[in-house]
């Protein structure tokens, strides 16, 4: 498979300003050197807890914010462009190739627009001015995501959370984008509706060959949609692997802890839980060495001083841990 998106050394620092003169007194290193690739037709999940920088990465890729350093190259229509450095004016015609599905289906749909207008707006902006043509395309999109055609003349408030998320997905698909960025697309939904939307994403991907960056905090949800998973902690990717391999045999202690903390609907499974001490490190003031070492039960003295770089320890398995190959961590098979 060919590579669609390649992120290299991506950094985003936010300045901390203090005092009357708003002098810069420090940097929040929200994203601090992130690299990964997404192949065409693949779903890569970016997983981590709040403040790990996963949303900042996705916003940098979409150039909703400007990265501080690094490159984001995307292969479009035979040639590659670096989205990270492209001037805004040249960026605009490329935006149709990258679309977003948002977390909150309530705030991400304009309550004053009809469903047909919401889904049709990207078409209109990109030159489909013929009303009948647009309507036909909108109806086709609605059918694709499982919305009744009668919904076209209704307002979003008439719909439940799950149906609203379908509207958001139809809008994202309107322009046949090369890349879909879905930021926590099911975390605001009820369990019984979550499954519907996850299945829809899988179906659409099979039918349309979509390439998806799936941003989530929940390893359970990710297991159902991702081909590969990248786990982030305090601005960096600590482990990246094929989904099955990562869940079966994690190589980073943080991945192991995340897996064991995921609630499973099996009474008694909890006895194997790893309870991490303390809170997630502050990205404005990350610990020296490995950022995870204050919470790591396997930490050695060198973990406090040497920062582990991301290494490909086996084909397709990347991990940033000094002890990655010697730990023998527990995966899902050992947790139930």
């Amino acid at each position, binding site marked *: 498979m060919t590579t669609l998106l390649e992120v290299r050394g991506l950094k985003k620092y936010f300045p901390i300003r203090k005092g009357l003169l708003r002098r810069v007194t420090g940097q929040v290193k929200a994203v601090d050197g992130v690299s990964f690739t997404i192949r065409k037709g693949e779903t890569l999940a970016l997983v981590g807890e709040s403040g790990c920088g996963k949303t900042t990465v996705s916003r940098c890729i979409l150039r909703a914010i400007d990265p501080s350093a690094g490159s984001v190259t995307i292969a479009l229509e035979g040639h590659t462009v670096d989205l990270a450095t492209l001037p805004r004016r040249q960026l605009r015609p490329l935006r149709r190739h990258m679309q977003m599905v948002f977390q909150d289906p309530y705030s991400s749909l304009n309550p004053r627009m009809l469903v047909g207008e919401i889904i049709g707006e990207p078409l209109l902006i990109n030159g489909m001015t013929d009303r009948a043509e647009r309507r036909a395309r909108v109806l086709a999109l609605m059918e694709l995501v499982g919305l009744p055609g009668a919904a076209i003349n209704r307002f979003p408030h008439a719909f439940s959370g799950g149906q609203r998320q379908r509207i958001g997905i139809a809008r994202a698909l309107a322009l046949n984008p090369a890349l879909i960025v879905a930021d926590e697309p099911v975390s605001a939904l009820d369990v019984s509706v979550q499954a519907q939307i996850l299945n829809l994403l899988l179906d659409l991907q099979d039918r349309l060959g979509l390439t998806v960056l799936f941003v989530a905090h929940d390893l359970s949800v990710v297991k159902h949609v991702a081909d590969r998973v990248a786990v982030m902690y305090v601005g960096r990717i600590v482990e990246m692997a094929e989904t099955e391999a990562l869940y079966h045999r994690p190589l980073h202690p943080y991945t192991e802890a995340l897996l064991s903390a995921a609630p499973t609907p099996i009474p008694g499974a*909890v006895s194997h839980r790893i309870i991490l001490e303390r809170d997630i490190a502050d990205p404005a003031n990350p610990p020296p060495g490995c950022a995870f070492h204050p919470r790591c039960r396997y930490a050695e003295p060198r973990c406090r001083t040497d920062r582990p770089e991301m290494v490909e320890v086996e084909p397709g398995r990347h991990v940033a841990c000094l002890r990655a190959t010697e730990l023998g961590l527990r995966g899902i098979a050992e947790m139930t």
Partner: protein
Amino acid sequence: MAEPILSVRDLHTEFVANEGIIRAVDGVSFDVFQGRTLGVVGESGCGKSVTARSILGIVERPGRVTGGQIILRPADGPPVDLLKLPAKAMRDIRGPEIALVFQEPMASFSQYYTIGNQIMEGIRLHLGLSRRAARDRAIELLDMVGVPQPSRRVDEYPFQLSGGLRQRVMIAMALSCDPRVLIADEPTTALDVTTQAQILDLLRDLQQKQGLALILITHDMGVIAEMAHDVAVMYLGRAVETGPVGEIFSAPRHPYTRALLRSIPTVLAKPRTRLPTIEGSIPHPSNRPTGCAYHPRCLEIIDERCRAQEPPETGAATTRIRCFLHGGAA
């Protein structure tokens, strides 16, 4: 088994809205025992939070409790029906007898007082301690719930704490007057999973040490499996199935419980597998379907009866169900 500390019987709570009367809680019954956890699980609009608020007598207008009984058996003295208590007597129940941990710790604290002052308020009011003694007690409580450096943290404001620490402080505050029943309403929903694991661990630990009766309200079947001894599954204002956690998970009987358990994503699934789903969406409580409220989404609907009649609650004291598949004569 011992007598339950708290028994809820046929509780009804209604809200008057433009669309008419909304029956948010519509005939819910359950028992809570010392040292045990009752998990109340359901999706949005099922009435789980309103049930908690009804028990504490803090349902906000225009809602009001319209029927049923909430029997509390105090350590000394005869059982009382909380719904018949005057407002002033109810104030002596909230805190020393029943306490509540809210979902959103940021929204539930005042931003203008230190956490110490907020914990001390309840202690001084209910236990009549001096300022100094109340402060010592607050520090002791913070230490008990695992807040590091409690004597320093006691003077901090809520915004200075992380989400996990704030929830620990919330639990300390709820425990400040030694309640016998603790209601935790989605206590970990706003938290990250590693923090959630810490807080659930803390609740389990406190329960073992103090013999608390815990009512844990959540939408997460995983949290229920981990924490609860008994479960009440709610749908649109009713407990559709109640029973011991082992039975509910290994042999669920109500079609809703079965469908809900199947539709949960888990880390144990094969990668990229489709989940069984529940068709349709949850109706708005003002638009409750006739008969069994679950019938439009039910795959095991039997006949006209499910559409026309509400199934009665059948079964023994500890395992109850509302479904015509499992009894309930026409």
